[in-house]
């Protein structure tokens, strides 16, 4: 059975790009338009991998990432960050939230800054889930 990959991104062009890449490489794509919808889908049916944007309406990828990494039942799901937001800013935001909330959230497994070539995305997915 092919592995399920959830794409959480508000940009329909990006969703379409990632879905095409996934289908061509025999993965089963699932899509969500924002952080809130993404979390609902993950809780309902945990995917094998999440590809996550950061800047989205109704709940950013920053909050969703923290939720995933601090929830015992979800923290093993690998996450690839796939965003236009610079990694430096993402890590600073996590540091600020760590200081505010206490505790430390691990860094993302893979951080891809848009745009990327399909091959680079496939390599990242294969690295995480084969």
């Amino acid at each position: 059975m092919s592995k399920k990959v959830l794409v959480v991104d508000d940009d329909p062009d990006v969703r379409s790009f990632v879905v095409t890449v996934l289908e061509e490489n025999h993965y089963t794509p699932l899509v969500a338009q924002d952080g809130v919808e993404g979390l609902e889908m993950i809780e309902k049916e945990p995917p094998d991998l999440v590809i996550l944007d950061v800047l989205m309406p109704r709940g950013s990828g920053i909050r969703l990432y923290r939720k995933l990494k601090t929830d015992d039942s979800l923290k093993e799901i690998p996450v690839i960050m796939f965003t236009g937001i610079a990694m430096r800013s993402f890590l600073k935001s996590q540091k600020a939230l760590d200081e505010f909330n206490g505790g430390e959230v691990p860094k993302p497994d893979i951080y891809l800054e848009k745009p990327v070539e399909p091959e680079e995305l496939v390599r990242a997915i294969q690295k995480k889930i084969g």
Partner: protein
Amino acid sequence: MKIKKLLFVTKFEDLCYDSLNSLLTLRKAGLEHVVFLNVIERDKVAMKRGSGYLKEEEVKLKETANIRFIDWAENLFELGMEVGAYIEVSTLIPEILKAVEKEKPDLIVIGRSHKGPLEQLYSRSDITELTRRTAIPILVFKHLAEDKVVPEKIFERPLFATSWSNSSEKAISCLKELGNVIGEMHIMHVVNEKDLKSSDTHEVQKVRKKERKQLDDLCEEFEDAGISVRPHVYVGDPEKEILKAAKEYQATMIILGFSEKTAILERWMGSISRNIADKSIYPCMLFPVKK
């Protein structure tokens, strides 16, 4: 009523990061989430004779906006804030209302209306339209005067003009939550000349005494909430007196409730809040009628 989430509506030429930056003082009072909205007006990409729908122009405008929002969002994310963004090709007010429905913000921040006087007469200003269609407070942000300088501390010396209406009550409950943010607030009530039963000194003084007592009670409420306040009673034409007071006390912003006049009456006669929001040089925080 706390301001935890704000909807920042920008066309980029009116509101930019410097304006947003001056609002970040609200973090001291609980602001944690900013949602950006850029509406690309349809006529910028509409069907043109010989060239059809300007799809390439749409992509270009959306990408330009996206790059600006990413840049702003990075700054806010680094502060530990939550950020969201919408870029839509549509009409301004319906898109604001859609975003309000989805995001449930506590404050809408918008630039001065760009419609011309004739257009406003028939279709109303964006701000008036918005106050009619939402119950959420609206901050009409303005660059001060000709030099286009953004007021750095708009909450430093706000002038709150109360009419003792429902919408003023809403303003009071919101302002009480801003104890850490407001420097010194001036509170005023204008007794309209038309409402005075007679113009003899004794009558005028009696009215002043009554209004002043009411303002003093309100001042105590604000002082209990940690806000330093100074009350003022003015007599005359409300619009003129509010602007006079704003100048006298070097207000950094004017805070107003919105009137309950009917739409048609307001279109032809105007309202004090609308006129001040649309025409004065001061940033204005408007509280629509409670719904």
